[in-house]
């Protein structure tokens, strides 16, 4: 069900985003979304930055993380310590190869399925595909693989799965900082590779433009981030499957919350663009404080989040911030005759609006005091 304007009961906008670097004892979570695409820029304290996923700035066509970090004066070449590709979908990896090239001290983190022989065969095949543009997923991933191979330094790549600790600082005179992966589970990685096998073309089969399957969300890397007393869950596109050993169910069945003493979070980057498929009731009980701040991006290609999603998230959170107004669907002005023809033929039409970049910026002290801002494209429910 697509979002409707009837639902629209937006609250007043929040203050503008801050355009200077945060102090070393202030954490930041900046969420960017142009309509289709997502990028999270995190200040982990002490001048260290971490980037999750990538999308392009509609104005400059460069990765939004680079534009933003440059705009606030961050030396990203030296200060970005890691880039996580949460999964292999174009709305999460556009521009990631460029990020990697510019952030020369950053490691790349991703699921091992993305560097399995099956995935690498696909990228090699479509790299040599002279007959058709390959899709953006494959093109971008191929660039990442080629760049890393060209560095001759395999240590710039680190595979990540559930329970993986990217960062863990717990020492005196230092704000405690932890960044831990909640997913993917071992079974999710295996299933994801099985799905990639199905994409391998057979001899004499008709060439198509490669399409990374929707099931690639199996590989989604959800993150638990802690800075002092602040905890944040960044849900990526992790979904709730029937299988007890994949998706959110695997997170809760694994026992990692207790084993790793993961504290309940105050902020939730809602998984899978607020869609029902990314929801699991135990997220709200076991991983989050009552009424957290919920933030998310839209995925206008699939009408996410829809009216029901927005209503559900409003009830579960103290505030819901979305990088773009999901009810806005700017129509393209076609020739009148074309419009008539389209109306008579098309069973459904969606415009993929990606011309404006929404930005939600959350800054926090080590005591967990939040300062939230957003730009003119983001909305507040």
């Amino acid at each position: 069900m697509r979002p409707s304007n009837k639902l629209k009961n937006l609250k007043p906008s929040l203050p503008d985003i801050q355009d200077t670097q945060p102090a070393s004892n202030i954490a930041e979570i900046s969420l960017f979304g142009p309509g289709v695409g997502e990028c999270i820029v995190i200040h982990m304290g002490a001048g260290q930055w971490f980037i999750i996923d990538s999308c392009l700035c509609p104005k400059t066509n460069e990765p939004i993380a680079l534009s933003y970090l440059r705009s606030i004066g961050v030396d990203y070449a030296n200060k970005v310590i890691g880039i996580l590709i949460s999964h292999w979908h174009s709305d999460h990896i556009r521009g990631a190869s460029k990020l990697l090239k510019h952030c020369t001290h950053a490691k790349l983190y991703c699921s091992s399925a993305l560097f399995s022989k099956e995935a690498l065969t696909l990228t090699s095949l479509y790299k040599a595909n002279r007959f058709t543009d390959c899709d953006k997923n494959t093109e971008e991933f191929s660039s990442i693989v080629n760049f890393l191979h060209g560095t001759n330094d395999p240590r710039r790549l680190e595979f990540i799965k559930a329970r993986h600790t990217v960062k863990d600082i717990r020492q005196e005179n230092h704000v405690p900082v932890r960044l831990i992966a909640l997913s993917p589970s071992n079974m999710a990685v295996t299933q994801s590779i099985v799905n990639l096998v199905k994409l391998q073309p057979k001899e004499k089969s008709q060439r198509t433009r490669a399409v990374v399957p929707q099931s690639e969300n199996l590989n989604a890397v959800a993150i638990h981030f802690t800075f002092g007393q602040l905890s944040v869950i960044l849900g990526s596109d992790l979904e709730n499957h029937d299988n007890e050993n994949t998706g959110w169910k695997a997170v809760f069945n694994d026992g990692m919350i207790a084993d790793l003493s993961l504290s309940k979070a105050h902020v939730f980057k809602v998984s899978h663009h607020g869609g029902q498929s990314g929801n699991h009731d135990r997220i709200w009980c076991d991983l989050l404080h009552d009424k957290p701040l919920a933030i998310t991006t839209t995925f206008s290609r699939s009408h996410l989040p829809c009216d029901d999603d927005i209503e559900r998230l409003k009830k579960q959170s103290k505030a819901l911030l979305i990088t773009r107004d999901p009810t806005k669907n700017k129509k393209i002005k076609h020739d009148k005759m074309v419009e008539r023809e389209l109306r008579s033929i098309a069973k459904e039409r969606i415009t993929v609006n990606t011309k404006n970049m929404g930005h939600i910026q959350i800054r926090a002290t080590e005591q967990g005091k939040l300062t939230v801002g957003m730009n003119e494209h983001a909305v507040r429910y």
Partner: protein
Amino acid sequence: MDNTAVDNSFISKTSLPSSICLQRVVSPLPMAKNDELNAVKTSAALKLVQQTQAPVHRQNSFDEDIKQEWSGVVIAVNNQEFTVQLSDKINPDNPDEIVTLDVEEVDPAEQSLIKPGALLYWHIGYRWSSKRPKERFSKIHFRRLPVWSKKELNEAEQQAEKLEAFFA
């Protein structure tokens, strides 16, 4: 049918964009052995034909006024429907559109090509001829890309093994 041998009888006397010729020239017939080459050369060949040969007007051919041209990729197929992501070729600054259509909108000879990842062109416009009145038309045409060869598949697998060893 050899696709490089452009059938001039389809080219009307009016100056048309090459995309229109493409619609006429690329046949929905099964691909010949040389079609790998043809698939790449079709566009260039059409331009060459337009530059070097005087257009011939056949009595039953149409004049056309293309109002809209998209290139698209199939992103989902469900029963008798398929969904395509369309990029505007006339106004490239326009955002992409996602459109769901009935399979029946496609020529029966091309319906077997409808699968995720398949590429297509879609033209909407007017056409008319000396014998027929002006009418609206909508033509969805699927691109027939060459098949994968054993050599290509083997090379990709070898490259993947090399990369896998590097990243292991």
